[in-house]
Structure formats: C-alpha cells, structure tokens
C-alpha cells in the first residue's frame, strides 16, 4: 500500500512538474507596464529614465581600439564614441565629428574639416591632433584598413586633418571616415595600453560610469553633448545573461527594457506578446557562397552549373522558414537601397530552368556530381547549408555539408578549398560597396578567397576602383562589378540580415533606427511609467 502510494505520488509530482515546465506561457501573462494617463502623446520625446538592456555578451575591451573585437564595438560602445563621418541608409558619408571630407586624387590627399566646440568626456578638446592620434594608434598597431597607404598625417590647424596617401582609393576614404572611433588621447596616454581597456572617454551622447566585463557596463548622460537637447535618456546599463529563457523572462517582467539577443524563436514569442522588434543595423550581415571556380577540374568552374545551382535553390523559402523571416533573400550581390542593386535582376527559384542548364552543361540526374559546402560548424549555419544541399539533389548535385571549427574555417577561406562552395559572411553592413570590395574587390582585404575564379573583364573593372577619386565613381565601378558578377554567376548570393533586437512599446526608437547605418542612441527615449 505504501509502495503504491509512493509510486503514485511521485508519478503525479513528476507529471505536474513536466507540465509546468513545458506549458507555453499564455499571451496574457505579464508584459511591460502600460503608460500612465499623464504620459505625453507618443512622438514627443521626453527626457529621463535609465534603460536596462541585456544580451549574451558584454564588451571585454572598452577603450583600447587596436585590439577591440567586433562585439566590443557594438551596442554600448556606440553610445560613448563617435566617428568622423557617419553613413546614411544609401551608404553615403554624412557629417558627424567632421563636417565635411574633401579628396584630391591627383594630389592623393584626403582632408577632413572637424566640428568645433566638441569635447571628450574627460574635458579634453576634440581637435585635429586628437583625431590624428587615434589614426596613428591604429596605423601603428597594423589594424587600420588602408593604413599602409598613408604616407603622412598632418594637422594644418586645430580643426583640419589631412592625409597624404601613396595610392588613392575612395574605398579607403570611406574606411578612414567610418571605421575609426575618436577617443580621448589624454586618457589613453595616462591609462596606458592595459589601463585603457577598462577606461574610455569619447564624444558620444553617453559617458562611461562603470565597467565590469563579467557583469555590466553602465553609461550616463553626457551633459555637454554637442547635439543640444540630447540624449533623452539619463543612462543605459548593459547586463549579461547567457540563457535565452532568462532573457525573455527579464524583458517580460520589466527587469530590462531592451533585449540584444538575436535568438529568433525568442523574438517571435515576444512579438506575439506585444513587444517590438527593432532593426538595430539594417542588412548588417550579408551571406553568400563562393565557388571553387578557379579549379578547372571542378564542375563549379562551369558558369552554367553555377547558374543552375542558383535557380535550384529557393532562398525565399529558406528565409521565411528556417530564418523565421528575419532575413531577406538575395538574388544578386547587393540588397535594396545598396550600391549596385537592380530590382529586375535575379535568378529566382525555377527547378525546370535549373535542370535545363545542367543538361546544357552536360550533366544529368543519372550521373550526379559531388561537391562540398564548407562553412562554420555552428548549428544555424549547418542547418542553412543542409537546406541548400537538399534543394540541389533535385538537379543531380550531391552536396556534402561540412562544418568547420572557427579557426579551420578562417584558414580555409584564406588558403583555398576544393570542389565546393565556401560559406562567407560580410559583417560590416555599413557601406555595401566597401563590404563588397572587402571580398571581391581589386585587392580583397577581408579574405582573398583564392579558390574563386575571376574573369579578366571582371578584374579590369575591379582594378579601376583603385583609382576612383570620388564616391560617385567608386559606386559606379562597384555597380559594374556587381553586374558582371551576376552575369558570370561568379558568387552565389543568399540573404541579407539585419541585427534585430526587442523592446517593449514604451521604449521609442523610431528616430534612432532607419535614418543611418548606425543606431542613434541619442534619440532613444522612454515614456514615463
């Protein structure tokens, strides 16, 4: 009897706990507090409040720019530091700490006119010498894109910064203007290399208050910010939590008001509960595949086969299904609004066409060809490539999906691969023309992708980029490269994805997102609760 009772009791308890753990939270469970009656109408920013955000990582290095990782330069760092120029949604340089940039390709000079009256958070003036210091620091560390071409850095006056370069490239003008943040030399020099990792003074709307890489980063309003009337928030604190379920609980219980995790399933669940999805950086990530077309023994050296592969892959279905609608399918090496985009261009899903092309290339379903699709061993990446491999079976291509550890993946990208595609991701997102040239330009800097075959015609256009003197010429040449890329089916475009985050409805980011390539934290505001 006792044994029966014990067994029954334990079974019931186990069932209750399992059901309790597995049951989905109903949509009516706690959401962020609604605005009170005294709140002003939506659209009128109000000042005040500290925004708490959380994600799976915090920066580990907040002030020594040469060794900052990508993750260190996102989110909270962008509230502290600014660049010489920002970028609008068309990829054009717009003023930020510099009011204009002038180039002289014949004289091989680049000149920025700096904004007056801007101070660093430690009280030091932002001027030409401070700007020059930051560039010199990056150049000396060997991490400044295009830094090798800089012959001389001059400061003719306090608010003019001038580079003399050995070879002029508009790609480098964009990189110099956008990729280097302006930090206070006074603080860097006093703190030293190791000390500067945890200290920073920029010119941004917020200044650093506390930094503990294990737990949180806190910034507070910069009262002397050069854009008067901003920022609206009193402060921002970035916390860290590795678990998606806990992050979801935190935002639902209003412990945080901004969620930086990109977990697609979690975002979908939160959308259903009335939270907003914020586009932090549009088209930040562009995914494409590079074939081993330089190898004449590989079937991928045949452009008909490459075209067939594009037609055989339903990228829209993958974006809507596997990627939960967070990515936009790409049918050319560009995306809407970016340099080189043509709405009429693209090889959309058409299996019949794909089979026809394979026949023209001399292949048939009776004799399948084998290739490998290389990429990282992360589950999302493997899943996407597996989906592509499934599509290719329909046209007689057996694609083996190989997931590589990060180091091997990077090494193989740089050193070459055989008979297959290499999954590549362009992460800069800011200027597509620059991002495109990082991989497929005249002198690719991100990765040489040596297994890619490039026609002489393509290289002829690419080499002209080296002498492009202004944005219009540069963009025009990149447009031609993208067209030629499409004509040759040189690479296999897949999709573009922005970084999307979540926030409750009382956090307003409409002015912060969508106006430039970067998220404007100065314009974020919260309704009073």
């Amino acid at each position, binding site marked *: 009897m006792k044994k029966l009772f014990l067994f029954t009791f334990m079974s019931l308890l186990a069932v209750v706990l399992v059901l309790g753990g597995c049951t989905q939270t109903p949509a009516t469970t706690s959401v962020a507090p609604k605005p009170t009656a005294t709140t002003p109408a939506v659209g009128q920013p109000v000042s005040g409040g500290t925004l708490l955000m959380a994600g799976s990582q915090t920066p580990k290095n907040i002030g020594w720019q040469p060794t900052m990782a990508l993750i260190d330069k996102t989110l909270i760092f962008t509230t502290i530091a600014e660049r010489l120029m920002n970028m609008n949604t068309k990829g054009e340089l717009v003023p930020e700490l510099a009011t204009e940039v002038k180039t002289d390709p014949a004289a091989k000079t680049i000149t920025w006119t700096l904004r007056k009256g801007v101070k660093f958070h430690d009280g030091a003036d932002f001027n030409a010498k401070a700007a020059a210091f930051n560039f010199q620091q990056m150049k000396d*560390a060997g991490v400044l894109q295009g830094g090798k071409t800089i012959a001389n850095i001059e400061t003719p006056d306090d608010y003019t910064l001038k580079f003399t370069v050995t070879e002029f490239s508009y790609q480098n003008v964009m990189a110099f203007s956008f990729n280097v943040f302006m930090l206070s030399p006074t603080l860097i020099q006093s703190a030293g290399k190791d000390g500067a990792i945890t200290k920073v003074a920029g010119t941004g709307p917020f200044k650093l208050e506390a930094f503990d890489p294990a737990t949180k980063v806190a910034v507070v309003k910069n009262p002397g910010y050069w854009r008067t009337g901003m920022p609206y928030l009193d402060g921002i604190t970035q916390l860290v939590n*590795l678990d998606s*379920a*806990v992050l979801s609980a935190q935002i639902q219980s209003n412990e945080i008001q901004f969620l930086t995790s990109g977990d697609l399933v979690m975002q979908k669940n939160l959308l259903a509960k009335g939270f907003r999805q914020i586009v932090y950086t549009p088209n930040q990530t562009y995914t494409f595949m590079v074939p081993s077309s330089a190898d004449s023994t590989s079937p991928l050296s045949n452009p008909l086969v490459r075209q067939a592969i594009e037609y055989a892959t339903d990228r829209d279905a993958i974006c809507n299904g596997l990627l939960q609608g967070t990515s936009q399918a790409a049918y050319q090496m560009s995306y809407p609004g970016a340099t080189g985009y043509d709405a009429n261009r693209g090889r959309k899903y058409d299996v019949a066409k794909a089979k026809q092309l394979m026949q023209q290339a001399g292949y048939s379903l009776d004799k399948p060809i084998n290739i490998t699709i290389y990429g990282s061993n992360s589950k999302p990446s493997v899943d996407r490539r597996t989906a592509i491999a499934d599509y290719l079976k329909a046209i007689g291509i057996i694609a083996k999906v190989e997931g590589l550890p990060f180091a091997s993946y990077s090494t193989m990208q740089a050193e070459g691969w055989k008979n297959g595609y290499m999954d590549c991701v362009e992460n800069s997102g800011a200027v597509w023309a620059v991002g495109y040239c990082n991989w497929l330009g005249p002198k690719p800097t991100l990765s040489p992708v040596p297994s890619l075959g490039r026609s002489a015609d393509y290289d002829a256009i690419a080499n002209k980029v080296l002498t492009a003197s202004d944005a219009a010429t540069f963009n025009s040449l990149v447009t031609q490269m993208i067209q030629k890329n499409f004509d040759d089916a040189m690479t296999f475009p897949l999709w573009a994805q922005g970084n999307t985050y979540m926030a409750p409805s009382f956090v307003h980011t409409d002015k912060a997102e969508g106006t430039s390539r970067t998220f404007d934290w100065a314009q974020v505001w919260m309704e009073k609760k």
Partner: protein
Amino acid sequence: MIVPKRRQCYNFARGCTSQFTVMTSYIIRRLLAALVVIILVTLVAFFVMRLLPGDPLQLYMSGTIDLNAMEPEKVAALRHEFGLDKPIWEQYFSWVFNIFRGDFGTSLYYRTPVSGIMAQRYPVTIYIGFLALIISTVIGLSVGLVAAIKRGKWADTLFTALAYLGQAVPVFWLGILMIYLFNLQLHWLPTSGFTWPTQDLGDSTRKLIMPVLCLSVTTLSATARQMRSSMLEVIRQDYIRTAWSKGLRERDIVFRHALKNSLIPVVTLIGTFIPWIFGGSVFIETIFAIPGVGRLLVDSIVGKDYVVVQSVTFVIALIVIFTNLIVDISYRWIDPRIKY
C-alpha cells in the same frame, strides 16, 4: 594481567609513533600520486586546446574587425607577445613553470592577468557554494533524521519521495522553472544577478535565494538519503536497544547516542561535495548570471580564450585533488577505527 604504568606509557607512545609513521607515509604516498595527477592535468589542459584545429592566435584575432588589415609583421609581433612562436614543448614548460610562480598568463580576451580574473571570480563561487552546502547540510540532516525516526509514516514517505525527486531533477531546468514561477508569475524575486551582502544585504538575499536553492537541491537530497540510511542502520544496533530498555528519552537516544555514529558516512559524503563548491556550478552561474568561476569557464570556452580555460581547469583540478586528500586524512579523526 596488570600492565605496569611505565609499560602502558611506553606502549601508548609506541602506538602513537607507529600511527604517526603510518599516517606520514600515507600522506606522502597520496602526495606523490597527486603530483602524477597534476602533471597529467597540465598536459591535458595545455595540449587539448593546442590540438584543436587552427592557430590559437587566429581564433583570437579573427574576432577583431581589422584582422584583414593587420600587417604580417604585426601578426608576428603578436605571436611573439603570446609566446606562440616558440616550440610547443617550450611553451608547455614555460607555462607550467610560470604557474608554480603564480603567473597564469594574460587572458587573450580580457587582456588582464588570469590570476586577477580568478581572484575576482572565485570568492563569488565559494560564497554561493558554501551557502548551498550549509543549507543542504542542515536541511538534509534534519530531513534524513526525521525520515529515519518516523520510518514507515507519511513523513518518511514524503521526504523520501522528495529526496529521490531532488536527485533526479536537472538543476538547470529547475532554475528556469523557479525563474518562471518566482519572477514571471509571482514577481517575488529577481531573475538573476549577484550583489555582495556587504553592498546591499536585502538585494543580495533576494538575488541568491533561487541560485542557492537550485545548487543545494542535489546535495540536500543525497545528504537526506544518506542520513536516513545510516540512522536506520545505527538505531538497529544493540546498544541503542539497550538504551531504549534503560528507559532513556528518545531525544537523548537519538542525539546523544545514535546521531554521532550515523554521521560518519554522512560527513564522508559531505566531504565529497567540497570540490564541487570550488569547481563552481556552470549551469547555475550561467542561468542566474552569477560572475563566478563556472561562468568564466563557459565565457572563455565560447570566446576561445585558451589561456583562461587551461588555467582555470588546472586550478579546479588542483583544488579537487587536495580537498580529496584532506577529506581522506580527516576520516582518521572522525572514525579512529580506520587504519591506513
């Protein structure tokens, strides 16, 4: 036979000396064995990371946005800075030598000495671990005691069932369930975070309730079951029956006679939990965002900071080895019948 006092003293002294000699030789044997284990741990901790495909520096450098623009001579300088241009065995011996000088190297990710990072994280892990240990010991002993005394009654059934459940339930799942219940539904406790009690006692207590309870569930259940089992064994002994026959109070029988003897295996069990405290609970620290050693290890593995991974692994192994040794040695004092 009457043994003269002098003979008694002589025998006692000889006995002590003999025991001391035996104990010393036992400790020396264990230390030698520990040394072999430590060497093996250093080999595994060092070479496993190095044997992973790819260049460790490449792993770190690939995270930097300007890796593509890094000049080869700068790469070489960085490689030299981290000692990666030396032969692998030289790197190993250099690392081991530095460890015994207290220099665990510099974190690739944090760019600060690893010893400093561990000095920040270990107190947090130890504090939470000890809280969990105290709670699980006190409650586990009490529950086991009651279950044994009330054997066959509803209390015994209930506590035994809960103990089985406690040992079976996955800790990370329990943590998430508690967050769902106490935070999302009831709004009683915060989801995560850590505050020292000296900074804010109330906030610290609120933040630690869930992680400490989660951490103590498994050990509490094990302690309760062991306590019940050993107590049941002891109260069946003849001397306990004699005590009952003499008419002693139940309280005296349980606490004065039975409890001490039944504690021997329980203390042994609790001793095995101590290394677990220093190892940190990766799941609990990850779920509740506690900046302890467990989370440091996870962050470092994810961030491929091999310097931190090998150093933390080594320190945890060292602590486990020496706490096991101390616990083994302490058995002698707990139970004089034990001979080495």
